[in-house]
């Protein structure tokens, strides 16, 4: 029993370099950083990542002033608008493409339901939202994997669709197609008449079919180099891209305006109108009119309780571990703007997501509790910051 002393193991404190600690214990690493007053990315608590926005770069040049550059049509897949957004190390490329759909839903004015007030009331709530439209977003986050889309991609796509619809930025009316008519004149030359002037309107009304069409917009959002949550970047990029959208004008060929076919089915005769081929004018386009005062930008915030035990200054002062630590030490809660990086994404469970217009109107506000102490002050602070951020992004989009 003489080797008791020899067998006692002396415990040496293990220390790791910061980058290894960040890998094996991201939450501790985060707490240590925060206790020193900055974040793992060396940003301040309320500091956003720098953002750069470029719109219209990848767009097919519909109205090119430079005649030397002639770009052949891209088989109908061409972009109508686009945006390249860079925030920190993350790139988001958004491309807007379009399509045309025959409008079969009747607007309120078209309905002959004057007597049926009850039905109108029921449909009122529904038709309020049908005045507005959305785009169909497909989000793709590049991670070097193939195959089916991830949960995150699906969630963000759905959220973008719903948010855009309910933020009333895009109305059905601006997506309505006002087709012109392509006319072959007596001398054989071809011209397109658009219903812009009164005189032209009469001509097109006479020739135009009774059907209605609308544009549909698709957004392909690709995220490169994801380092943290990306919803706000996708939203901002989508909104910036929408502002650069140019809708091509469409026309119908004169000869196709009154095509009718009689079909016989089960002993009955029916007249089927020919499905019209709407063609897009490669030379004429109009800017997509968004509701300016509803244009909003998103930002995210995280809330985290500071762990007093991880405080480096405390560690240095109280080497005596036996002393109770929790006396006199209040847990402090801080607000972090623009969450990014693995440590922040995994350790911060309480988040606030705000979509705000620069003028202070809010389009979306969501809080995930997550266990941290969310105080009124923190909420107010995040609202103030979101307005500032929104103003900042608006300036960046406008200067493009």
């Amino acid at each position, binding site marked *: 029993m003489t080797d008791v002393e020899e067998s006692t193991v002396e415990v040496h404190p293990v220390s790791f370099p910061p980058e290894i600690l960040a890998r094996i214990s991201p939450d501790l690493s985060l707490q240590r950083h925060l206790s020193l007053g900055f974040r793992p990315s060396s940003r301040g608590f309320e500091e956003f990542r720098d953002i750069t926005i470029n719109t219209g770069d990848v767009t097919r040049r519909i109205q090119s002033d430079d005649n030397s550059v002639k770009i052949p049509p891209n088989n109908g897949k061409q972009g109508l608008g686009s945006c390249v957004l860079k925030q920190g*190390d993350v790139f988001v490329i958004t491309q807007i493409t*379009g399509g*045309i*759909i025959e409008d079969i839903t009747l607007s309120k004015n078209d309905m002959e339901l004057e007597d049926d007030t009850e039905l109108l009331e029921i449909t009122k709530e529904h038709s309020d939202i049908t005045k507005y439209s959305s785009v*169909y977003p*497909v989000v793709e986050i590049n991670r*070097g994997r193939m195959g089916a889309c991830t949960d995150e991609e699906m969630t963000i*796509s759905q959220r973008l669709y719903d948010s855009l619809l309910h933020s009333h930025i895009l109305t059905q009316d601006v997506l309505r197609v006002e087709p012109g008519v392509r006319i072959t004149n007596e001398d054989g030359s071809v011209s397109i008449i658009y219903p812009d002037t009164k005189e032209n309107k009469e001509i097109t009304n006479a020739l135009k079919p009774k059907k209605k069409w609308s544009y549909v917009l698709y957004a392909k959002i690709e995220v490169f*180099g994801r380092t943290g949550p990306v919803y706000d970047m996708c939203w901002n990029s989508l909104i910036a891209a929408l502002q650069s959208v140019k809708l091509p004008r469409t026309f119908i060929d004169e000869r196709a305006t009154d095509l009718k076919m009689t079909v016989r089915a089960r002993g009955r005769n029916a007249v089927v109108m020919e499905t019209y081929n709407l063609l897009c004018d*490669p030379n004429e386009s109009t800017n997509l009119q968004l509701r300016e005062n509803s244009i909003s930008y998103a930002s995210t915030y995280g809330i985290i309780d500071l762990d007093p035990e991880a405080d480096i200054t405390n560690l240095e002062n109280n080497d005596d571990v036996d002393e109770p630590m929790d006396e006199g030490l209040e847990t402090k809660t801080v607000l972090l703007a623009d969450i990014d990086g693995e440590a922040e994404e995994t350790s911060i469970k309480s988040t606030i997501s705000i979509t705000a217009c620069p003028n202070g109107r809010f389009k979306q506000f969501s809080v995930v509790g997550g266990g941290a102490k969310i105080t009124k002050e923190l909420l107010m602070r995040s609202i103030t910051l979101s307005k500032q951020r929104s103003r900042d992004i608006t300036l960046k989009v406008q200067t493009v």
Partner: protein
Amino acid sequence: MNVQDRRRILGPIEAKPLAFPETKSTSNEETTVVLPEFQAPSIQTNLLKNCNGSCIIENENTSILSSIYGPRSTRSNLFESRCLINVTIKSAVFPTSELKELSSFLINVLESFVCLELYPKAGIDVFINLNIEQVSDLSWYIPYIMMSIVLGLVDAGIEISDLPGCGFNDNNAICFTKNGSEVIGIWRDKGDIKDESSFGDSLDICKDQYLQIKGLMASYLLSKLDDDKST
């Protein structure tokens, strides 16, 4: 049955894509369009954080982004003594069948200069994103695509035996290595080779272009090395 992909929000099925009329008046111009000469593009590597290596090659209306993932473990249970290379090309402009063909061509080319034996049981995945306005056939882009892959591989620290490159002339894209003494791949979009001498000429032009590209890549890598040293 509705066969639409329900995981993605693709919009109504009845919607038709925007159709542009065939421009008859400009069709003559299109056929005589002189393909842009090789323009020295801007190069930037190491710009994506979630992959091993990346490179973006940009010129006036082309932006080609390569991201290299690997060497990393593969899903296959078999023991592979050599590394497996996979190339995926994404583009909204070209049809998928053409892109698949090009990716298998590029895999062949890559296998001739990447030191596969050094990475047993591993895989290297190459993803290429073409953000372009279509100006010409696929072959015109191959020199740029090759450039972005090679620089991406260098950025990822994957060992390659040489700095290979590719030249383009008259629908031919020819990949060279070893200072132009070896051809590692020939891609031709369309048309027959009428006579051998014309092919010989375009081989020489491609070779000159390859040497120019190689010079560009080497000077970029050297300047990057100097920058890294100074910082």
